C-alpha cells in the first residue's frame, strides 16, 4: 500500500531492543538469559541485578533516628527501606480486667501439668520455665503490638493512604508471632514493681496472738507487687519497597528494640499512680534474648509452565537427579519477587558457642526445594547472621 511505503523510514528499524525494554516485555526470559548464559560465552551465571544467586544486597542500619520514640531504627536492604519506631506506654494492672484472677492461678503449675501430660521430666526445669512464664505474660496481656504499614507509597502496587493490604496484615502477624516464639523481649524488663513498706503498727496489730513469730514477721519484707506494665507499640513503615519486605521489617524491629530505652518508672503511693523520671541516665535498655536474623530466598524456575501441564510433573526421586533449570535466589528484589513462586524464609540465631539455632523456617509455594537445599540455605542464613551482627553492632 502507498501509505505504508511512504512512512517507511530510509534506514530499516533495528530488531533489537534495549535491555530495559526487553526486561519489561519479557521479564521471565530476561532473567533466564542472565542466569543461564550460553556455554560458549564463558560468562558466569549472574542475576539481572548483577548479584550472585546467593548474594544479599548491601544492608545498612541506623539507630535512634526518630527523637520522639523510645527506640527507633532505619534499615535499608538495597532499595527496600524500613523505618521502625518503638513507643512505650503504661498499662496499669488495675486496668487489666482479669489481673487478680490471673495472678492467683500461677502459670508455672499449668505448665507443670502440661509437661506431665506430655510425659516429660518435670524436675529438669531451669530458666526455660521462666522463659515460658515470660511468654505467657507477654502474650496474654498483649504487651507487644507490632504493626506494619505498606500504604506509604512505597511501591506502585500499594496505594498510599489505603487500608492495610493483606500483605501488610500478614507480615504484621508474622512479626508478632516471631516476637512471641523467639521470646526476644524479657517480660521482666516491662514490669514496674512496687515494694510496699513495712508499716510497723499495722503488722503488730495483726499478729498479736503470735508472740514468737512477731519479730521474724516484721523483719521479713512484704511481697513485691507488679503495679504496671510497659506496652511496646512497634510501628514499622516500609518507605520504599523493592522486594523482600519481611527481612527489612524484621531487621528494623530488632535494631529498634536494641535501641529502646525505657524511663525509670515507680509507683507513687501518695498519688496512686506511676511516675516516670525524665532523666536519661536513669533509663534502662531492654535486655534482648539473642539476635534473630531473617533471610528470605525465592526459587526461579526456567520453565514457568511446568506446574500446570498434565504429564511432566516429575517424581521426587527423578527430580533430585537433574536439579537444573531452577535457581535459588537470596534476598529477591522487586523484579525477581514477581517472577518467583516458591519461597523460603529462615530466621536463625546463634548461641554463644556459635551453634546455629533455627527460630522459624517457612517453605511454601512449590515442590522443588527439599532437605538438601534447605540445609544449604540454613548455612547461608547463618553466614548472613554474622554479617547482620556486625551491622547491628555498628549502629
Amino acid at each position, binding site marked *: 500500500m502507498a501509505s505504508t511505503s511512504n512512512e517507511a523510514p530510509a534506514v530499516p528499524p533495528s530488531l533489537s531492543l534495549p535491555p530495559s525494554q526487553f526486561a519489561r516485555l519479557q521479564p521471565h526470559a530476561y532473567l533466564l538469559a542472565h542466569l543461564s548464559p550460553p556455554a560458549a560465552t564463558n560468562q558466569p551465571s549472574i542475576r539481572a541485578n548483577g548479584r550472585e544467586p546467593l548474594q544479599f544486597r548491601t544492608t545498612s542500619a541506623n539507630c535512634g533516628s526518630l527523637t520522639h520514640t523510645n527506640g527507633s531504627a532505619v534499615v535499608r536492604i538495597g532499595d527496600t527501606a524500613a523505618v521502625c519506631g518503638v513507643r512505650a506506654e503504661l498499662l496499669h494492672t488495675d486496668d487489666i480486667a482479669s489481673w487478680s484472677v490471673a495472678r492467683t492461678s500461677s502459670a508455672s503449675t499449668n*505448665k507443670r501439668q502440661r509437661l506431665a501430660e506430655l510425659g516429660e*521430666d518435670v524436675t529438669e526445669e531451669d530458666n526455660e520455665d521462666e522463659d515460658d512464664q515470660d511468654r505467657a505474660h507477654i502474650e496474654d496481656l498483649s504487651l507487644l503490638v507490632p504493626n506494619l504499614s505498606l500504604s506509604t507509597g512505597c511501591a506502585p502496587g500499594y496505594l498510599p493512604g489505603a487500608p492495610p493490604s493483606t500483605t501488610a496484615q500478614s507480615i504484621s502477624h508474622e512479626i508478632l508471632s516471631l516476637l512471641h*516464639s523467639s521470646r526476644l523481649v524479657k517480660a521482666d524488663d516491662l514490669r514496674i514493681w512496687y515494694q510496699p513498706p513495712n508499716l510497723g503498727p499495722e503488722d503488730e496489730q495483726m499478729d498479736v496472738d503470735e508472740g514468737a513469730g512477731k519479730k521474724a514477721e516484721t523483719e521479713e519484707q512484704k511481697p513485691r507487687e507488679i503495679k504496671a506494665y510497659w506496652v511496646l507499640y512497634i510501628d514499622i513503615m516500609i518507605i520504599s519497597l523493592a522486594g523482600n519486605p519481611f527481612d527489612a521489617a524484621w531487621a528494623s524491629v530488632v535494631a529498634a528494640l536494641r535501641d529502646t530505652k525505657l524511663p525509670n518508672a515507680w509507683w507513687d503511693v501518695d498519688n496512686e499512680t506511676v511516675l516516670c523520671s525524665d532523666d536519661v541516665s536513669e533509663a534502662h535498655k531492654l535486655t534482648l534474648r539473642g539476635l534473630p536474623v531473617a533471610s528470605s530466598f525465592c526459587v526461579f524456575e526456567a520453565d514457568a509452565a511446568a506446574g500446570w501441564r498434565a504429564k511432566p510433573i516429575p517424581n521426587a*526421586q527423578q527430580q533430585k537427579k537433574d536439579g537444573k533449570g531452577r535457581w535459588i535466589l537470596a534476598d529477591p528484589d522487586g523484579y525477581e519477587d514477581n517472577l518467583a*513462586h516458591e519461597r523460603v524464609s529462615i530466621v536463625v540465631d546463634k548461641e554463644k558457642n556459635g551453634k546455629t539455632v533455627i527460630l522459624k*523456617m517457612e517453605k511454601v509455594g512449590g515442590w522443588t526445594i527439599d532437605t538438601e537445599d534447605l540445609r544449604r540455605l540454613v548455612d547461608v542464613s547463618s553466614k548472613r547472621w554474622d554479617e547482620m551482627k556486625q551491622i547491628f553492632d555498628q549502629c
Partner: protein
Amino acid sequence: MVGPTASLSNLHRADGSASYKCPVTGYDVLGAVNAPIELPARKDALKPEDATIEVFVKPGKATAGVGERYVERILRTMLEKVILGREKGLPRRGVVITLAAVGGEAAERGDSYITIIPALLHASLLALISAAVPLSMTFTTTLLGVTRSGQIIRDPSPAAAKAVASLHVLSFSSKGHLLLSESQGRFDFETWELVRQQAASICRAVATTGSDGDTDMGEGADGAHVDAFVRETVEDSLHRDYTWKLESA
C-alpha cells in the same frame, strides 16, 4: 488413636464442599469451593493466562483478623501451585475457597496459627475434589511437635502445642514432593530432618528408608496414613454418587 473424619459435598449451593474433623486436635473445618466463577473488577489482569485463587478463612468465634490473613496467604501460595489454573475454562476465572472453623479452640492474637493448617488444608483439598477443580496432585499434611527432651509427638492439641519447643507443619504431595514446611520455635536442622522423616511416614504409605524404621512400622500397623484416609474418603463419596449406575449395571 482415633483417626480423623471427613465427608464430601455437604453444602448444596456451593460447587463443592467438604468437612474435615480431627478429634485429636479438636479442629472441625467446613470448606466450600466455588469454581470457576467470574471475578469482579480486574483481578485477572495480572496473570491473564492463569486462574485467580482466593482463600478466605473464618475463625469459629470471632471476626477474621491478621492471623487469618497470614494463614490465607500460606494456603493460597500453596494451592496456586497445585490447582491447574490453565486448564480449559479456568484462566481469567476465579477459584474461591472459603473455610470456616466450626469447632476447636480459636487461636488468640499472636498465637501460632500453624496448628490449624492441616485441618484447613485437608478440608480445602476435599472441597476442591468435590468441586471437580483440576489438580496436578493431591497432598496430605501433618502437624508434629518436638518436646524439650527431643521427643516428637504427632498432632499436639492446642494446649500441648504451647508447651513444645518447636512446632512443624509439613505437607507432602501424592508423589512425594515436600509442598509446605512451616516451623516455629527453637530447633536445629537435625531435628527438622527427623521431623521430616516422621512426617513423610505419616503422610505417605510408602516405606521410608533410614534409621527411623520403628516409627514407620508403628504407623503402618495403625493403617493411619493420612494419604490412605484422603483416598478412602473420596472413594466412598464417589461410590455413593455412582450407586445408581452400579446398581443398574
